[in-house]
Every structure is written in structure tokens, then in C-alpha cells.
């Protein structure tokens, strides 16, 4: 997806209400190449991006990938994780693939969206059991990490933050009795 396509998607999802700064942010959004070739495989990376899109899909607001979460995940996995963290995370992704082959006789990337959702739901259910097996735990912990990265990446992108949170950097006052229904979203600054 190039940035023109993203802009087009955004103007659909946000109506025609793109502010100049959102437009600027979207235009400056440059998907980067995988910086550390070999630190993970193309398929592993693809799994993370697909999962991000399932975790925060397009609704009345843009999806995870539309706001740049893919870039964020690439950065974290390539440049921020320690070697041990990356190894564990990628083993969890491989385990997701193994579970996929076991259940559907197909790798995760070849599943239908319904199958992917079913599998990830199963991974969450098994992983959050009292005593998950070592392998279930591995797949679950990588998926949980992906959920966290998706949310953090979404909420630290300009487009995502402005869409899903109430961005109020300069409140000007404090009101300890403010009512939630007046805003309907969590604050961000």
C-alpha cells in the first residue's frame, strides 16, 4: 500500500475531515524496508502485520496498518528487541504457524480470515488457561506482545491517536468531576 492509497482510505474512513496536519502526517508516512535482513523471515514479518490488522481492523476509524503500526512493529522487532526477546517472539510466531498447520493443514498466511480469527481465538483461550502447555504459552505470549505493540503503535501514531483517543495536549484546567460521556474516549497528550 502506498501513501496515496492510505490517504484515500483515510478520507473514506474519516469523512472529508482530514486536517492539514493529518494529511501532512499521512503524506510523510514512508513504509521502510526491513532494515535487518535476516533477523526475521518475510513470512514471520507478514504474520505480525496480518495479526495487527486483525487486532485493530478498519472500523469507522482506520486500521492498524493504515496508521503505520507495521512500521512500528518492524522497528521494535528489528531494532529494539534484544536478541533473546526477538528469538522468543519469533519462536512464538513459528508456533502459531505450527498450530495453523495442525488445525488446517495450511500455514497461517494461506488461511482465510475466518480461519485466522478462529485460530487466534483458540490461542488466546488455551494460553490464558490455568496451566497452558509450554508451546501454547509460547504462541500466546507472542500474540499478546503483538496486541500490545499494535495498541502502542496505534496510539503513538498521529492519525491513530487523533482517531481513537481524545487528544488534548493543553487542557487549561483540571476538572475532577468531569463526566466520561462528554468525551467517550480516553485522553491522550
Amino acid at each position, binding site marked *: 500500500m502506498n501513501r496515496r492509497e492510505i490517504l484515500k482510505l483515510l478520507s473514506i474512513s474519516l469523512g472529508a475531515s482530514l486536517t492539514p496536519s493529518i494529511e501532512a*502526517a499521512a503524506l510523510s508516512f514512508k513504509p521502510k524496508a526491513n532494515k535487518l535482513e535476516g533477523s526475521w523471515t518475510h513470512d514471520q514479518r507478514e504474520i505480525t502485520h496480518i495479526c495487527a490488522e*486483525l*487486532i*485493530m*481492523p478498519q*472500523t469507522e*476509524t482506520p486500521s492498524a496498518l493504515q496508521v503505520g503500526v507495521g512500521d*512500528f512493529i518492524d*522497528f*521494535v522487532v528489528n531494532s*529494539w528487541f*534484544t536478541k533473546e526477546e526477538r528469538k522468543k517472539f519469533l519462536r512464538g510466531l513459528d508456533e502459531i504457524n505450527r498450530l495453523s498447520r495442525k488445525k488446517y493443514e495450511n500455514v497461517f498466511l494461506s488461511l482465510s480470515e475466518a480461519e485466522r*480469527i478462529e485460530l*487466534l*481465538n483458540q490461542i*488466546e*483461550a488455551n494460553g*490464558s488457561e490455568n496451566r497452558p502447555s509450554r508451546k501454547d504459552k509460547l504462541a500466546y505470549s507472542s500474540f499478546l506482545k503483538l*496486541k*500490545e505493540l499494535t*495498541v*502502542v503503535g496505534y*496510539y*503513538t*501514531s*498521529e492519525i491513530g*491517536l487523533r482517531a*481513537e*483517543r481524545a*487528544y*488534548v*495536549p*493543553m*487542557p*487549561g*484546567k*483540571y*476538572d*475532577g*468531576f*468531569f*463526566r*466520561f*460521556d462528554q*468525551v*467517550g*474516549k*480516553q*485522553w*491522550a*497528550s
Partner: protein
Amino acid sequence: MGKLARDGGYDAIVVGSGISGGWAAKELTEKGLSVLLLERGKPITHGIDYIGEHQPPWERANMGLRPRDLYDSEYPIQSTSYAFDETTRHFWNNDAENPYDFREDKPFHWLRTDVVGGRSLLWARQSYRWSDLDFEANQREGIAIDWPIRYRDIAPWYSYVERFVGVSGDVQGLPELPDGEFQKPMEMNVVEKHVAKKISNAFPGRKMFIGRVATLTEPLHGRAPCHYCGPCHRGCSGGSYFSSLSSTLPAAESTGNLSLMANSLVESLEYDAASQKVTGVRTIDTKTKEKNVYRSRLVFLCASTIGSTQILLNSFADGEDRSFANDSDALGRYMMDHTYKAGARGIIPGFEEYYPYGYRPNGIYIPRFRNLSGDEGLGFSRGYGYQGGAGRIGWGERLKKPGFGADFKRELRIPGPWYMSLGGFGEILPYAENTMRLHPKKQDRFGIPQVTFKFEFGENERRHRKDLVEQGVKMLEAAGASQIQSYNDEMIGGAAIHEMGTARMGRDPRESVVNEYNQVHAAENVFVTDGACMTSASCVNPSLTYMALTARAADYAVKRLQAGDI
């Protein structure tokens, strides 16, 4: 640059531009003295160098993530602070460049800045007066030595500094925590008010109210009231919170009497045994390593507790190998801090229709309620206060539960339940064995002996912490909290960043380093007015007391100077 005194020196040299040094510079210049202010840190400009101020999340360096390798290798100590991240790192000390020594099994955290303005830029701004409960404690219990001053000596100076600092808070009429000259208080939120009522109902005599904080709620001297953007430690170009940069240094500069030299580390003082005076301040330029000696009639050491004592420990009379200021053997001893990272938190059910607006840079305060009228037989002396607050848990709560997709995305918009937290700050007693010394072999990059710490907590501290955790839980129970979690983390000296003592105040030169006016017994033209002078620690945040003592000492010093006594 300000004017030089006629004899080529200055009337006064102030070492350190933090919260105490800023006050010394302001008071001395306003009284007409020419002042050289020496700061080891980098020069920064109010407003301009607050690079993190109002920075939106999407512009944060490193995608907002902590560069962990850098922090581990160069900032292992400083990065333990909540206020340390990429928006503030330029204010902090580089641990790798400025090492110090401690025993691995007894860590001591020396958190320090490396800029003009010092830690006044990063402090948490809580501002409480001491009372005679504190000033009389050592004498009453026969611990260490008596303070040579009482509340009546410092009360007018608290008022004096509060009027300039701008402290917001409300009047409570508590003898153990005297009221100050307050701006209008910030507000407690709906749950804090609920919890406050429940606590005072269940525990007569205990009170919870909004913190007293050096953040403006009304305009003052060209500084703007708080706009509630949240992270004060990134700097506030409106000057809403008190710092040297927003307040005392501009006042000092406006007199025309101030010369400020950054990147100027003080190595030692030049001491003349015959006249019992300091005759010069030896500096090292941190950029060029060039050495200089500056001369003045007065010297104010405001380099922080550890910094000022390090300078004194490294200052000898000719032919001596021991500090000129240490005939008492008290120099470098009786180091204190506050106990920290113990308390309790819990969920307060209900109130979910409320969601506070604005990011209030302040919390609640529960003042000390233990041993107020003597030993209550609790197994420990003195006490502790709580700081904390109520708020709603963010999206982390939803993240932990299963589910993803459109519903998950929508549910993330709703804040989690209300929590209430109570964290204790407890008084640490002054122990002779808790020391900072100059290391016999290790030196820093300028050839100055490194500081080595030996700091241990005593039985009294362990006992009051156990009690404060228990009482925190009980008060949360009384407030109707569920899922109460108590915590009592590893105790680390210096971690509360309230280090005090090591050049204590006292009447007798045989057992103290400075007198009742912060004047060094062994050198009448030297004053130590930062945390080093503290004879005991109270349990309240100390900065307001340093400011009041500094203004009081400056007043005294100038009067003595004008009378020809110094």
C-alpha cells in the same frame, strides 16, 4: 556578565544553581552583592531547551521507546527515575562519565542533573513546612544532636520564600504540618474526595487533602498558572512550576549583579588557616579542563548534599591532609534520605461515570499521624506521610483480557476502573555509620577523588515501613477498595532523591559542621545551605526547607558582611 567587585574578585561565589543556589544568587544579588554563580552542568535556556515540552507522541525520538542499551551503559542510575526518558535525558548526569563508588550489595542511587538549574528542573514540587515535631525530635529522643533552630526561627523565611515560589495548597490548621502562604489549592477528584471522607471517618485524626505544590494556580511575577498539560519535568516555558530557571535566576540576573558560569566544576576551596577563611574557589572547566581560582568575600555552597560535602572533604589547609571543615568528624556522616517505594493500592468500585479532565501535576497528601504526642509504643520512632492519588486505569487493563478486532478496538476507548494509591515517605534517622567519603584511589575524569557511599537502613526504618504498608491497606479497606495490593520494594539509599545530612547544623563545633545560620564553624565566610546541613530528616519533602534556610543564611551573611564581621 555582571560586574566585578573593585578588588578584582566578587563579593560572593555561589556554587551550584539548583534550588538552593538559585535562592542564594537571588538574595545576595538583590542585596547588592556581586555574585559569581558556578555550575558544573551545561548552560541551558529557559523555554528554549525544553525540547520535550508539549511534544506529541508521534514526534518522540526512537518511536517513544527507551533506548535500553544506551540507558544501561551510560545512565544505569539516572534511568531509574520516573522522570528520565528521551524528553528529559539532556538534563541528567551521564553515569559513565561521572562514576562514583558503592558496595554492590548496598546500592546507593545518586540522581543528579548536569545543567544550569539543577534538579529544580526535575523535582516533584511537593512543598511542606517542617514543624517543631521535627526540629525537636533529636533532642526529645536523644538521637544524634539537637537542631540549633526551632520553627519560630524559620517560619518567617518559609513565608518569605513561599510568596516568591508560589505554593498552591489549602489551609488545614495542623500543628504538625504548619500552613503556608498558599495560592488557591488544586482540586481533589471525585474519588479522592470520597476516599478522604472515608479515611477521616474511620480514623479520627487522619486527614487526606490535596498536595501542597510549587505549581501556580494563579499568576505570579510574570509566571503563568498551570495549564495542566501533565509532565512538568520536561520543562515549562510558562514558568508555572518553580525552578531556578523560571524564577530565581531571572530575578538575580535582573539586578545586574550576577555572573553565571556554566561548565565550571568546583574542585575544592582554598583555605587560610591563619584567618580561618576561605580565600578562593578552585574550578575546572569541564570542556577544556582548564583550572582557575576565583576569589570572593563570601562562599555559598549549594552544590547539593553530596556535591557540597564532596567539595568540603576535598579542601585542606596548606600542609594538611584532612578537610579543614572536619574537626568534628561529622563531615560526610549522618547521611539520610526518605524511605520510598512502599505503600498500597487498590480498586475503588463505582464512579465510572466520572473521568477527570486535565493532567493534574499533583496528588494527595496524608500527613504523619504516628508518634505525634510522644512514643506511642509502636516499636519505632517518628513517622511517615503518604502521597498518591486516584485515577482511572488506562487501556492496559483491557489489553490483558482475551479478544481482538472491532469490539476490542472500541472497548479500548473506555478507561478501566478507578484505582487509589498511597505511597509512603518515611523518616530515616541520622546514623553516624551512613557515610559518604572520598575514595582513596578512584578518581573522576578531572582527577577529583570519587565519592564512595556506605549507606544502610536501620531497624527503625524497617519497622515504620511495615507499619506504613499495613496502615495503607487498612485505609484503603476503609475506603471500600477491592483487589488491594501492598508493596514494600527493596530499600535503596538515595532512591527518594531526598538525600540529606553530611555537614550537619549544630551549636557545638565539636559535633557539627555548620552553625544555626549555616555558617561553617571552621570558616566564617562559608555557608552550606543545601541538604547537607540537615540534622534530621523529617518525613516531608525537603526542598522548601532548603530554600527558607538559604534565604535566612543570605540575610545573616550580608548583615555580618556589612557590619564588618566577616
